C-alpha cells in the first residue's frame, strides 16, 4: 500500500499535515463504509461487489485525470476517450471469441495511447491552453463515439464479462476490486518508479525550474497525456466489461467525475502534488454516495449535488489551509 500512498518529491520531509492528508482519504472512506453499514445493516458481500463493479471505470478515469493533473495539465476529454473505447469494445467484441476479445482490448489500449498522444501533442505544440485543447478534442471524440455506435448497443462474450464479475478468492474480495488494483498498478507503478514519474512530477511542480534543470517538459507533458489516454481506454474497456454494452453518451459523466475524484483524492490542480491512492478511494466514495442515498430513501440524483459540493468543499478547505499557512 505504501507504494501507492501520495507523496510529493518536492516536500520530502514528512510533516504532520502531509501525514493527515495521506491518511485522510482512507479514513474518510472507512467512515463512509461504516455509515453505509449503519443505514443499511444488511450490507453484504454482494453489495460490496456491485460497489466495486460500479467504481471500476471511474477509478480508471480518475487515474487518467490524476496523471495529467500531476503533470500540471487538465484533461476535459476523459469522458469522450472512455466513450470511444467503450463503444469500440462493445461493437467489435459482440461476435468475437474470448481470446479475440482480449486482442481487441489490447488494440484499444494502443488506440487510447494514440488519442492521449493527440491531446499531448496539441497541448505541447499548438500553444493553445490545455483546457481549450481537451474541451475541444473531447467534443471531437464525442462525435467519433457517436459515429461508431449511434445508440447504446453491442456486447461482449460472457467469458470477458465474467472477468470482473463475481468473487473467486473470498466472498468479501470481489474480482472487480482485484481488476481495479491490478489495472491501476499496471499503469501507475511503471510511471511512479521510473524516470518518467520524476519528470512528470517535476514538470507539474514547477515547469520553469524543471526546464532549467534539463527536463524536457514538453515530453513529460506529452507522456502524461499518453498514459492518461491508456488509462481512459482501460476505463472504456472496463465500462464494457461491467455494463455489457457500449453507450456513446455514457462518457460525459466521467469527465467531471474524474476531476472530482482527483481533487477529492488530494491531487493539487496546480500540478506536482498528489498520489494515486487518494483518487482511487475517492472514486469508490463517489460511487458509494448514490447507493447510500437510495438506502436512506433520498433521491439518488442528489448524488450529483453532493459530488459538486464535495469538490468545492475539498478545494475550499485546501485553499483555506494554504491561506492560513501564508499568514503564519
Amino acid at each position, binding site marked *: 500500500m505504501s507504494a501507492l500512498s501520495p507523496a510529493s518529491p518536492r516536500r520530502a520531509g514528512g510533516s504532520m499535515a502531509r501525514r493527515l492528508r495521506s491518511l485522510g482519504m482512507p479514513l474518510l472512506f472507512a467512515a463512509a463504509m461504516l455509515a453505509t453499514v449503519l443505514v443499511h445493516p444488511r450490507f453484504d458481500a454482494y453489495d460490496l461487489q456491485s460497489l466495486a463493479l460500479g467504481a471500476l471505470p471511474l477509478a480508471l478515469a480518475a487515474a487518467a485525470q490524476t496523471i495529467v493533473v500531476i503533470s500540471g495539465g487538465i484533461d476535459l476529454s476523459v469522458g469522450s476517450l472512455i466513450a470511444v473505447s467503450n463503444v469500440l469494445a462493445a461493437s467489435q467484441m459482440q461476435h468475437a471469441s474470448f481470446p479475440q476479445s482480449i486482442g481487441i482490448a489490447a488494440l484499444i489500449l494502443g488506440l487510447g495511447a494514440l488519442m492521449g498522444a493527440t491531446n499531448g501533442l496539441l497541448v505541447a505544440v499548438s*500553444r493553445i491552453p490545455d483546457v481549450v485543447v481537451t474541451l475541444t478534442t473531447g467534443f471531437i471524440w464525442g462525435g467519433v463515439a457517436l*459515429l461508431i455506435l449511434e445508440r447504446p448497443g453491442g456486447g461482449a462474450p460472457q467469458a470477458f464479462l465474467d472477468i470482473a464479475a463475481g468473487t473467486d478468492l473470498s466472498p468479501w474480495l470481489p474480482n472487480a476490486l482485484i481488476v481495479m488494483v491490478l489495472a491501476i498498478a499496471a499503469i501507475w507503478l511503471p510511471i511512479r518508479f521510473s524516470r518518467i514519474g520524476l519528470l512528470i512530477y517535476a514538470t507539474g511542480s514547477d515547469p520553469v525550474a524543471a526546464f532549467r534543470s534539463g527536463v524536457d517538459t514538453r515530453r513529460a507533458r506529452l507522456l502524461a497525456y499518453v498514459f492518461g489516454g491508456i488509462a481512459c481506454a482501460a476505463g472504456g474497456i472496463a465500462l464494457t466489461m461491467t455494463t455489457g454494452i457500449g453507450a456513446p453518451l455514457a462518457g460525459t459523466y466521467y469527465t467531471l467525475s474524474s476531476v472530482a475524484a482527483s481533487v477529492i483524492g488530494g491531487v493539487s*490542480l496546480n500540478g506536482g502534488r498528489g498520489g494515486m491512492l487518494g483518487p482511487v478511494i475517492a472514486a469508490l466514495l463517489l460511487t458509494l454516495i448514490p447507493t447510500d442515498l437510495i438506502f436512506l430513501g433520498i433521491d439518488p*440524483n442528489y448524488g450529483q449535488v453532493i459530488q459538486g459540493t464535495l469538490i468545492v468543499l475539498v478545494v475550499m478547505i485546501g485553499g483555506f489551509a494554504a491561506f492560513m499557512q501564508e499568514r503564519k
Partner: protein
Amino acid sequence: MSAALDFLRRRTIFALVLLLAAFILGIEIARPGTVTPLWASNALLFAAPLAIMGAGQTLVMLTGGIDLSVASVATGSAYLLATNAASGDLTALAIALSLGLIVGVVNGLGVAVLRVQPLVMTLGTGLMTGGVMIVYSQEMLASQPHVPAMIQTLGAGKVLGLVPVDLFLWVAVAALMLFGLSRTGFGRLLYAIGDNREACQLAGIRVWRVIFVDYVLCALLAAITGLVLVGGTNAADLSLADSYLLPSVACVIIGGTSIFGGRGGYAGTIVGALILTVLTSLLTLLDVPEPIKQILYGAIILSLAAAYARLTEA
C-alpha cells in the same frame, strides 16, 4: 506579404473579420443564393445568445479565470423560468435570474475569497446546479411549463420581419462591455488583475472584490443567455444549453482573449461568436451526419485557435 502579415498581427480583429467574410463567401459558393438578408438576420438571431454568454466568459477570462458552470446556469435559468411562468412573468423572470445571482455569488466567493482555482470551482458549482435542476425537475413533473410570450419575443421575434429582437439585447450588452472594459475603472482593473494579480494586490487594490463582482456578472449573463435560448426554442429541457459550453469558451479564445488573462476584449468575442455561428450554418449546408459535423466543428475550432496562437506568437 510580410507587411500585410505584420498588420494583421497588430490588428488581429481584421484577420477575424476577413475570416468571417471568407466563411460567408464559402457558404455562398457552396450553395449560391443562400446568403440573403433573411439568412443574415437568422445568423444574428442565433449568434446573440452565444455572444451574450461569451461576454461573461470574456469577463472572467480577462482575469485569467474560466467559468465552466455557464451552461448549467443557462439551462437552469431557462427551466426555472418555464416552470414558474404560472406565477407571473416578472416573478418567473426574477426566479430565473436569481439562479444566476446565487451561482455567481458562490463562484465569486470560492474564486475571489478562498482562492480556489476557477476551473474546479465552476466545475463543482456547475455539477451542483445541474444536480439540483434534475431533482427539481422530478418534483415539477406534474406542472405545465410554458415560456412567457415576452421571452418568446425576445428569443425568436423579429422587428419588421428582419431585425431579431435579441439583437437589441446583444447590442446593449456589447455597448456596456466595450465601454465598461475600456473606459471604466472596473474594466481596467480586470486587465490589470489578469496581467499581474500580485502587483495589483501590492498596489492596494482589493482584488477579491473585483473578481467577486466579475464572477457574479458572468453568471448573470449566463442566466440571461438561458432566457434568450428558451425564448428561441419555446421548450425548456435539461440539456438546453449543454452544447453552448464549448462555443462560449471557443468564441472568446478565437476572438483573441488570452485564457491566461490581461489580453483581449469583447470586440474579438463578437466576431468569434459570429464566426462560430456562420460555421454551424456552413456545416448544416454540407448535409453530413450529426457526428461528422461535431468532429468537423471541433477540428476547425482547434485549427483556428492554433492559427491565432501562431499569428500572435512572434
